[in-house]
């Protein structure tokens, strides 16, 4: 049934077999441009995020508390380039400034060093550049700690930027959310698309999809006030607000997405498959489980991947339910996700400072992580599809 030979489709669809109506042609091109702009937008966002994160990525920031001081009176004794770097100015800014401004800036720099409380002046940690990768990824024994630890406490005299607890927190909540949501959502999708009577389907499907319309703030609030207490009374754990509660709350956001895409995939399996299976004597359940589900697997897998994306990107629910940057794999202890960290801390950081850059680094890493998982998922999906179509 395939047409013999491909129809030539040239650049922007100009050399096509038929002549489009001029207006249609225009509309088509407009849509094409819009979709192009979406790609451009994604690129721009990534470039912006990466640009802000670059100084930290390549170790060009110095977050050490104690910095060498150049006394304001000695400004003229140093080459201007050194003063510019010392003040952290761009060349443009530096040339636009007169001597008085430079002097005021030099004085502010000295004031900042004088503000340091005496107990930190002798602290060996005060000389460390805490934005180096080894402090970001490896445990370190800070002053006052008994053993090396992963610490995210960016605000304070010593800025501790270990990002591992945040990744662990994200993984914990996402894992709980998916473990809870995926079986439920796919089970519901199989039921609704294959087994349910039309009447039941008409009620269940819109109801589950309605769940996605609930703002995540509301879900978070509900989880914070009602679910946390309820789950604690059942499981009896100690920390009332923990990764487990957050994960369950997260699943409310994930279920409608996984459900509606999986349901679409299952419904679009040709009717003849069901008819053939039933004719050969399979039960309805066998048909759904052994024939329809495998046939719809690429779509179902896509649903799970999108659910994962939603779970890892969800901010508000986790921010409201739990937020403790604790390095612990236990599901019943607190967790702080990357997204919640960015949302909570961005408002108060000094623009262009190391904390600001660190949050952008987190954003870039999250972006990279979701990009890679999506790509891997896409490849796996392609394999599934090939196998199902017998192409290998």
């Amino acid at each position, binding site marked *: 049934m395939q047409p013999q030979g491909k129809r030539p489709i040239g650049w922007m669809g100009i050399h096509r077999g038929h002549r489009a109506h001029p207006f249609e042609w225009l509309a088509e091109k407009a849509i094409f441009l819009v979709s192009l702009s979406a790609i451009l937008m994604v690129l721009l966002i990534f470039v912006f995020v990466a640009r802000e994160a670059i100084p930290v990525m390549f170790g060009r920031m110095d977050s050490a508390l104690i910095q060498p001081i150049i006394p304001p009176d000695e400004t003229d004794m140093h080459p201007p380039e050194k003063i510019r770097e010392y003040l952290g100015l761009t060349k443009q800014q530096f040339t636009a400034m007169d001597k008085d401004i430079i002097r005021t800036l030099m004085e502010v720099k000295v004031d900042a060093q004088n503000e340091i*409380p005496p107990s930190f002046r002798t602290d060996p940690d005060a000389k460390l550049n805490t934005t180096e990768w080894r402090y970001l990824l490896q445990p370190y024994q800070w002053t006052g700690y008994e053993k090396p630890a992963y610490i995210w*406490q960016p605000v304070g005299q010593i800025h501790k930027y270990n990002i591992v607890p945040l990744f662990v927190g994200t993984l914990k909540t996402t894992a709980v959310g998916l473990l809870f949501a995926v079986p439920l959502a796919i089970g519901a999708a199989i039921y609704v698309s294959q087994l349910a009577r039309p009447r039941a389907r008409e009620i269940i499907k819109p109801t589950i999809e309605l769940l996605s319309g609930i703002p995540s703030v509301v879900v978070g609030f509900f989880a914070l006030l009602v679910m946390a207490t309820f789950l604690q009374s059942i499981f009896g754990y100690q920390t009332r*607000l923990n990764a487990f509660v957050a994960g369950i709350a997260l699943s409310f956001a994930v279920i409608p997405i996984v459900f509606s895409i999986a349901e679409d995939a299952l419904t679009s399996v040709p009717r003849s498959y069901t008819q053939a299976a039933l004719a050969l004597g399979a039960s309805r359940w066998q048909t759904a489980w052994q024939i329809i589900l495998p046939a719809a697997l690429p779509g179902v897998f896509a649903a799970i991947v999108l659910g994962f994306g939603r779970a890892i990107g969800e901010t508000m629910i986790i921010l409201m339910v739990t937020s403790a940057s604790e390095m612990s794999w236990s599901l019943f202890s607190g967790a702080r996700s990357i997204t919640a960290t960015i949302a*909570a801390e961005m408002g108060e950081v000094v623009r262009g400072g190391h904390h600001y850059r660190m949050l952008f680094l987190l954003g870039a890493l999250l972006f990279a992580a979701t990009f890679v998982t999506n790509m891997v998922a896409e490849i796996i999906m392609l394999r599934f599809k090939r196998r199902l179509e017998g192409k290998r």
Partner: protein
Amino acid sequence: MNMKSRIALATLFVATTVACQAAGTITVKGSDTLVILAQKWAEVYMGKHPEVKIQVTGGGTGTGFAALQNKTTDLCNASRKIKAKEIATCVAAFNGAKPTEYKVAVDGLSIYVSVENPVKELSLEQLEGIFTGKIKNWKELGGNDAPITLYSRENSSGTYEFFKEHVLNGKDFASSAQTMPGTAAVLQAVAKDKNGIGYGGAAYGAGAKHLPIKPSANEPAIEPTEENVLGQKYPIWRYLYVYVNPALDKGEIAAYLNWIRGDEGQKLVKEVGYFPLPAQWRQK
């Protein structure tokens, strides 16, 4: 009248209205702690001076400072002192002038515990131990044999920073401390958790017990009342600030700043739940 002059007239008209509006509008941005108070001030002030328009937005102290240096806001509310780095960017943007600092109110911080908690008072030293994770059980403080759950604030909050600097003496919070998105959330959590402890503005009340604090182990415990906070007997309190570009600190803006720091403005501070400035900081 030909087309050209008509357009010119229209442009002139638009330009003058925009200019008039700009002259009478004061924008205020910054700390979320201060936003309710700032709105109250703006509301009452606009009622008395209908020619002045005041726009108040929150977003956080850091956001406020960023806006101040970009000159997108006239006043910046701050729940902490400005940092050297922020002064530096302001100096670069203001042609060498540092932003002017005004103290506008006093905020006392309370320690909240559940109503069911038998512990009656804590010392500053014990508080440091609790929030840095050295003291883990209420038993050590004369309470029940139950682990302590810590409720803290987001590290973007000025309250968090203040508590870390002045109560924990710069040490880190225990990493198990839950960071809550607002003082109301801390209160809510402590009210629901009988082993919980949290901190926040003294103005917030219902649902939890405010513990009296001993400045040191041998002194008597002091309640976070207005009298004690303003008399500087209660040990945990701070100023709230407004920062302004000195070039703008004249005319209507200066009048507004004087008003909020005067008796009328300070009366509203109390209504919103913070504490008014002591006499020496007020505008006479």
